[in-house]
């Protein structure tokens, strides 16, 4: 398990370094084009990147949670969700319990954020809480917790910042170049080597156009790899790959799109919040592998729940190839058995059913919006808005007057 994290970190660092080189190249060409000084541009690009990194590192999680309008909950607000997160915290050996947030949205999705295992948060939509049973929710939470455990959260945040900086710089550069040539050419016409300069400029323009695309592809590649690893870890932690598989099927079946997602936060969700129907299976331009493929891999893990089993299943689905998980990681862990579904022990009957689940969640959402709940004598629950001035409300069901 720990081997996997390390070997993946090395590979990711190489990819991130490639993106950083891209950024610095852009900075250099910008410098050459506008200031007659490549190094100056390089320094400026580096400073912008550094500042954005610092913001992402210290405030990234708060910004993301605020943008998605997530609400922090306590243990008593939703004991089942809290318990499941705690179970996965234990299974993964995380040092600290992550904060738990709920997003009031009928779409089915979840994400993890935070700087590292010591400061992390898991957010799920209220739709997810309503639609998934315990096993499925556990699979999803395990996936998110493994993003935290594998330090994907920070990595993807830093990658996202890098990508953002490249896109912004390239955008300004192409626009400035365009307008610059319209309004009387570049200032650097004084310098001598005309031919060499022209070549540098040409290379620069090509770079400006290609850099954002290349950076994006690298970013997607890193993100997809991380998703597979998180799925594998989820199977390992829960010992029950079918839970996540069936959750993914439910999520895929739902057509509601998340309202508050944005491009930067996309890789953190359990599925791509911007997915469109009918995308090709080997799509290079997505942060997530196709759900159907993820489900097929998880479903074909018949022999056990270890990384080796996931790797075999991955190769089975892809018809050979070298797999997705490094050999050292597979070698370091022993065989891992699967567990039975909770349902096989008739969990389903005792677990709150769909209706009960929905009611619990919607009650919770009212409560988080500061509505007060009054139970009328006829059994109806009245939700009283916080701004109500009146001292009593009439029950719409039976007509009794209830005092607040």
């Amino acid at each position, binding site marked *: *398990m*720990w081997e996997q994290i390390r070997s993946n970190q090395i590979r990711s660092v190489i990819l991130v370094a490639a993106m950083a080189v891209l950024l610095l190249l852009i900075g250099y060409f910008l410098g050459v084009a506008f200031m007659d000084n490549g190094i100056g541009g390089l320094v400026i690009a580096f400073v912008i990147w550094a500042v954005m990194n610092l913001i992402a590192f210290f405030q990234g999680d708060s910004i993301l949670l605020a943008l998605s309008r997530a609400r922090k909950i306590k243990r008593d607000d939703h*004991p*089942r969700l809290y*318990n*499941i997160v*705690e*179970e*996965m915290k*234990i*299974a*993964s*050996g995380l040092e600290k319990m992550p904060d738990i947030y709920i997003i009031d949205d009928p779409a089915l999705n979840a994400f993890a954020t935070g700087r590292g295992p010591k400061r992390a948060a898991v957010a799920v939509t209220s739709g997810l809480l309503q639609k998934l049973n*315990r096993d499925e929710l556990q699979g999803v939470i395990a996936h998110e917790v493994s993003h935290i455990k594998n330090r994907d959260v920070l990595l993807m945040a830093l990658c996202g910042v890098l990508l953002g900086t490249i896109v912004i710089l390239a955008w300004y550069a192409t626009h400035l170049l365009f307008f610059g040539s319209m309004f009387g050419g570049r200032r650097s016409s004084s310098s001598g080597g005309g031919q060499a300069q022209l070549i540098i400029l040409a290379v620069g323009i090509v770079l400006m156009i290609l850099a954002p695309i290349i950076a994006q592809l690298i970013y997607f590649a890193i993100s997809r790899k991380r998703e597979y690893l998180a799925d594998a870890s989820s199977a390992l*932690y829960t*010992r029950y790959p079918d839970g996540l598989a069936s959750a993914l099927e439910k999520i895929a079946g739902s057509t509601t799109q998340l309202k508050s997602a944005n491009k930067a936060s996309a890789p953190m969700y359990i599925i791509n919040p911007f997915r469109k129907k009918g995308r090709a299976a080997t799509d290079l331009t997505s942060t997530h592998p196709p759900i159907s493929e993820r489900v097929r891999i998880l479903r074909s893990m018949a022999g056990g729940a270890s990384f080796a089993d996931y790797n075999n299943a991955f190769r089975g689905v892809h018809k050979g190839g070298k797999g997705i998980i490094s050999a050292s990681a597979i070698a*370091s*862990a*022993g065989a891992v058995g699967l*567990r*039975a579904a*909770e349902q096989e*022990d*008739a*969990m389903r*009957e*005792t677990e*709150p059913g769909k209706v009960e689940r929905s009611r619990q969640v919607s009650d919770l959402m009212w409560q988080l919006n500061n509505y007060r709940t009054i139970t009328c004598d006829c059994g109806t629950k009245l939700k009283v808005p916080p701004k109500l001035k009146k001292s009593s409300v009439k029950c719409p069901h039976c007509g009794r007057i209830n005092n607040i």
Partner: protein
Amino acid sequence: MIAVYIIIGIVVILLFFFFGTYNSLVRLRNRVKNAWAQIDVQLKRRHDLIPNLVETAKGYMRHERETLEAVTNARNLAQKAIGTGVGAQSQAEAGLSGALSRLLAVVENYPDLKASQNFLALQEELTSTENKISFSRQFYNDSVLNYNNKTHMFPSNIIAGMTGFKASEFFEVTVAEERIAPKVSFT
């Protein structure tokens, strides 16, 4: 002169290797200890839940005095077994699991109990505690495997032998016991 440098270089490399391996052994051993503490926390949580469960069930189950007493006794035994070593403790806990699952089997005959709000909340807590126990056991065994590998494999086994790192015990649950281990499903 060159020979001296080479010797110094080798000594430095050996020292680095020695301290590096020693530190990672310490880290792995601490992880095993922490994982064990985690199991204890969860077992204690289960012990704490049981009086509550018995109390709630008593009101509804007038004819199951023996079953309830068996659970209480098994719990007391398990509580006494805390700190007596991995083997003894896992045995006592298995006994408790057995008693619990027998209780949960008869709950089926008491629909009123099954429907009570108090019992539903308890049930979620028990289900989750059972899960937490098995997840902490899972993590403990993973940690032990990692640690034991390090103490047995060459070359780290030399340093482990020199500095007194001994292999740890797995939390073994025999297959039969695992079967009874309560999947808390109050049906």
